[in-house]
């Protein structure tokens, strides 16, 4: 029996605002001493009240715009009520029926459009760690802004899911709103997976949600595992249970989490402590105007403006830091190199970045260009011609020879420069140096 795979995805992205979603505690919780970033609001003390973070809301709208969504005119927050030790108020402030953004899409490389059902804001829960017979709770993370992005069940296989996730991660990093690091937990995902018999139009009557996937590698593995597990069940004429399963990276399988007898009743109702939000068109255009150039647009522009291949352009625009470095290097060549012989082409810069491991934190674009220039190109000069030029240079610079012989070995750099000037072109520095040294030893 052949089955068609149907996957929908729910992704949570943690925003890197300075303060939390509903209070002014620092949102930078990673690696901090436990319970040092809390206040009455995010600790859920009696009497505390939430006030929404303007920047977080703007960034959520910006994410929605980058995903081609419609932005709501009127929106509000709602309470999602349930009990868990990591939820200090006994409810999470989230959005239910009036999210900030909806009905967007992302296009994959195979031309498929993945529908974005909604993009909304909520607050993160505290961090639970387990130690023997106890669980320990750190509320530093409680209240950090989270954006939830939900797709239509449009994915047909694990590869599409991975591509979507990489694109989403790239967009969110480009926007500068999140580090979207799966290992650190600033990007979390939950696929829901079901199988449909190939020749039916009916949607499957169940879906399985998978949690606890924290790297791209595991996304593929978990989905493949689930597909296999579900098809085996279906093959034996049974239906997989609708449930939530956790990915176990040690055992390499998904495992059933405590089965719930009935679906959780979250008793959503409008958050009475936060007045509704009303966006006007000019505010929404302002947010869009502040949006940095997105990966797709940058890619197209690199193809057009710099004549790069698609392969090169893709690599250069994969991360915004790379693209930025590339364009700054081009700027250096344009504005600071006057000698046409020392021209460095975009293609050369691209090659260097792509093929060598450049640490953008350790080298400035200027230093980088200098390195390229100094490395030079293949010498367009014969050995005889080079020796002739060296002879001329050395004749003119007797004193330099004496200095060198007297121990001032760095005078060789001066001589290299003279050789290049005489040759009227860039030459391989190493080659000149070696040849000069041979001469000077005589």
């Amino acid at each position, binding site marked *: 029996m052949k089955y068609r795979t149907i996957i929908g995805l729910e992704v949570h992205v943690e925003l890197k605002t*300075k303060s939390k979603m509903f209070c002014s505690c*620092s949102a930078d919780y990673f690696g901090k001493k436990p319970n040092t970033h809390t206040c009455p609001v995010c600790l859920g003390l009696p009497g505390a009240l939430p006030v929404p973070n*303007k920047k977080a809301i703007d960034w959520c709208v910006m994410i929605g715009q980058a995903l081609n969504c419609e932005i709501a005119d009127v929106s509000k927050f709602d309470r999602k009520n349930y009990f868990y030790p990591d939820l200090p108020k006994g409810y999470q402030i989230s959005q239910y029926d009036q999210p900030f953004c909806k009905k967007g899409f992302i296009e994959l490389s195979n031309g498929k459009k993945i529908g974005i059902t909604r993009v909304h804001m909520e607050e993160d829960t505290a961090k639970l760690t387990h130690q*023997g017979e*106890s669980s320990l*709770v750190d509320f530093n993370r409680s209240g950090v802004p989270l954006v939830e992005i939900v797709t239509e069940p449009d994915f047909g296989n694990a590869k599409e899911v991975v591509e979507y996730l990489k694109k989403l991660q790239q967009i969110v990093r480009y926007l500068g709103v999140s580090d979207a690091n799966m290992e650190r937990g600033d990007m979390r995902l939950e696929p829901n997976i079901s199988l449909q018999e190939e020749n039916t139009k009916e949607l499957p009557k169940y879906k399985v949600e998978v949690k606890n996937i924290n790297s791209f590698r595991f996304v593929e593995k978990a989905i493949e595992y689930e597909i296999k597990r579900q098809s085996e069940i279906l093959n034996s004429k049974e239906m997989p249970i609708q449930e939530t399963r956790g990915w176990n990276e040690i055992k390499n399988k998904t495992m059933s989490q*405590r089965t719930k007898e009935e679906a959780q009743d979250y008793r959503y109702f409008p958050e009475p402590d936060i*007045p*509704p939000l009303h966006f006007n068109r000019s505010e929404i255009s302002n947010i869009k105007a502040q949006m940095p150039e997105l990966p797709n647009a940058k890619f197209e522009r690199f193809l057009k403006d710099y004549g790069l291949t698609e392969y090169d352009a893709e690599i250069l625009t994969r991360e915004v830091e790379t693209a930025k470095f590339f364009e700054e290097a081009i700027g250096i060549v344009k504005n600071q190199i006057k000698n046409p012989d020392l021209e460095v082409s975009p293609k050369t810069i691209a090659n260097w970045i792509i093929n060598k491991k450049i640490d953008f934190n350790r080298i400035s674009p200027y230093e980088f260009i200098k390195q390229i220039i100094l490395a030079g190109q293949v010498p367009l000069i014969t050995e005889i011609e080079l020796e002739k030029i060296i002879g001329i240079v050395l004749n003119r610079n007797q004193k330099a020879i004496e200095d060198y012989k007297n121990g001032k070995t760095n005078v060789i750099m001066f001589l290299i420069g003279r050789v290049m000037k005489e040759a009227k072109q860039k030459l391989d520095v190493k080659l000149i140096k070696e040849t000069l040294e041979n001469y000077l030893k005589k």
Partner: protein
Amino acid sequence: MTNWKTKPVYQLLSDLALSYNISMKIDVPRVAKLANLPLRQEEKGKFEKQLSEILAYVEKLKKVDTKNVEITSQVTGLENIKREDKIIPSLSQEEAISQTKSQHNGLFKVKAILE
């Protein structure tokens, strides 16, 4: 307006019940579980009776025609109340954990949650 002084409450309620033909049974154990409220066996009956009476009373709202009426969830008429993304000093760790009976190395401690 309801006439509490001249009619006993229970009579009023059964009048209401008959006139609206409602069954007002509330599943107390289920609701108590949802509300994370531990309830003793002997309490269930008492609460069932009391809650059913109250629910019977509020059923009168069914009489009101609210077909084209917008709901009011914010009586102030306020909109767009937000704050700037600034940091204000937090409570210290000692202050944060000062009110719990169970803590360990600055973390709140609870019985293990079975996943």
